């Protein structure tokens, strides 16, 4: 009975699974590309650092906090016009990736900033004393030193995105969350509910294990 009903949902589940993967991958990619430099900017423009600049620091900081303080579900709706503009639609995983990216960028940027802050100031100073350019210090000191922290930040961001992507399902984003709600919740199908939850747990665990493994491997401290 159980197996049978599982078997019947398999094609849909499979589709939902890959939709989720797709959303998380795109928005994770975008948040890395934009969030990493943003995190570095937040750090290096701070007082007493390479590019000390109160104005940039404040502007970037406020912007980041602003986005982060808006609940995701509201952001999702508020960004519909932007989504339409970028993807030409407001439905489907590609459309959902827009608001997911917008939410993840400041989140990831703050995590990057935090891991940069953990670097001993002396190490940065030693590089300054050696006569290295700020650009060289960012590339060869800051990023390598913060690498374990950044890997951990990627893991945390990916896991959060997985959660948010389920929410994106509500506005027709597709993916596992959408699937669970449509089949499991609205149709009171406990098997589907249960299966999707287990699947999500497995994915999260997997992400965590891989993330921790990579972080450990790049940590030379």
């Amino acid at each position, binding site marked *: 009975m159980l197996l049978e009903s599982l078997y019947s949902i398999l094609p849909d589940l499979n589709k939902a699974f890959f939709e989720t993967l797709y959303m998380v991958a795109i928005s994770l990619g975008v948040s890395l590309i934009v969030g990493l430099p943003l995190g570095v900017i937040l750090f290096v423009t701070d007082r007493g650092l390479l590019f000390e600049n109160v104005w940039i620091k404040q502007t970037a900081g406020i912007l980041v906090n602003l986005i982060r303080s808006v609940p995701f579900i509201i952001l999702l709706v508020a960004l519909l016009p932007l989504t339409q503009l970028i993807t030409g639609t407001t439905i489907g995983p590609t459309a959902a990736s827009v608001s997911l990216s917008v939410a993840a960028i400041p989140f990831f940027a703050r995590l990057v900033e935090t891991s940069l802050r953990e670097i001993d100031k*002396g190490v940065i100073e*030693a590089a300054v004393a*050696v006569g*290295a350019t700020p650009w060289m210090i960012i590339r060869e000191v800051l990023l390598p*030193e913060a690498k374990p922290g950044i890997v951990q930040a990627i893991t945390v961001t990916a896991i959060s995105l997985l959660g948010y992507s389920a929410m994106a399902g509500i506005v027709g984003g597709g993916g596992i969350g959408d699937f669970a709600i449509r089949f499991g919740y609205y149709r009171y199908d406990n098997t589907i509910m249960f299966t999707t939850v287990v699947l999500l747990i497995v994915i999260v665990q997997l992400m965590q294990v891989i993330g921790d493994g990579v972080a450990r491997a790049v940590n*030379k*401290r």
Partner: protein
Amino acid sequence: MIEVRDVTKIYSAKGKDIVGVKNVSLKIEKGEIFGIVGYSGAGKSSLLRCLNLLEKPTSGEILIDGVSITKLSKKELREERLKIGMIFQHFYLISAKTVYENIAFALKAAGKKKDEINHKTLELLKMVGLENQKDQYPAQLSGGQKQRVGIARALANDPKVLLCDEATSALDPNTTKAILSLLQSINKELGITIVLITHEMEVVKEICHRMAVMQDGEIIETGDVYNLFAHPEKELTKSFISSVIQMNLPEPLLKGRKGVVIKIHFKGAIAEEAVVSELFQNFKVKGNILHGKIEYIQETPLGIFIMELIGEETEVKRAMDYIKDRIENLEVVKHVA
């Protein structure tokens, strides 16, 4: 070569002004090892960090080889820093880079070509004795080895000056000795001027030519290390010196002495000790040696000799005159009845 002109550094933290360095003027000559001592918070690091502008002086000027570094542009300052190496108490190596990469980093900063970087890095590794550790990460090294990497990195671009901020304070005595002798040979063989700060007088005694004593941001005494050890003027200097050389007679020994107790300072040639034996041959006095100690400030001996002269008053006086006349380097410091 390094000239510090009336430099003051004031930090403002939480609306309060904290004086780091106060009106310091100083000249450090080419090729010397110059030590700056002082207790914690005296402003040693602040002063040293002004020398490569890690800290920008609030006022005053710093000249290196006649160039006022306080007036350089950012780019010029970066180029100047290639010529000023610096090492730190806590090493500050890049933990994500191997020993080799840490040293190569400094050469890259100077815009060197790949071949040249490789060649020079290997040469530096050899100089500091870490050829076998080149692919290890800092976390796998001992403190002494980490400092050697720090030294190699600091010397990568053939600097004129090496600044050392408590370079041996985190190391055990044996490792300290080894690092100090490495610094000494760098000074001798490469002719690099070394400025080092420390709160350990032992370090100054071991390798410095000249020194300055700092207190509350000011330099209160400065001079040739040997002369300062022999004739310290300020109380603080004396207390620093007594931390490595105990020259005073233990109190209990002074009690119940009937004769005249004299204290003789030996400076330089140890052969002058012969005067003491001549003393006993030429005068009718008996000597009672209470205390004697010879310390070597680098190669030169500095010693004291405390003895009690027993005999007739006139004879004792003649004996003392004899000492005073004979050798300038021997002085009678104290008469105790």
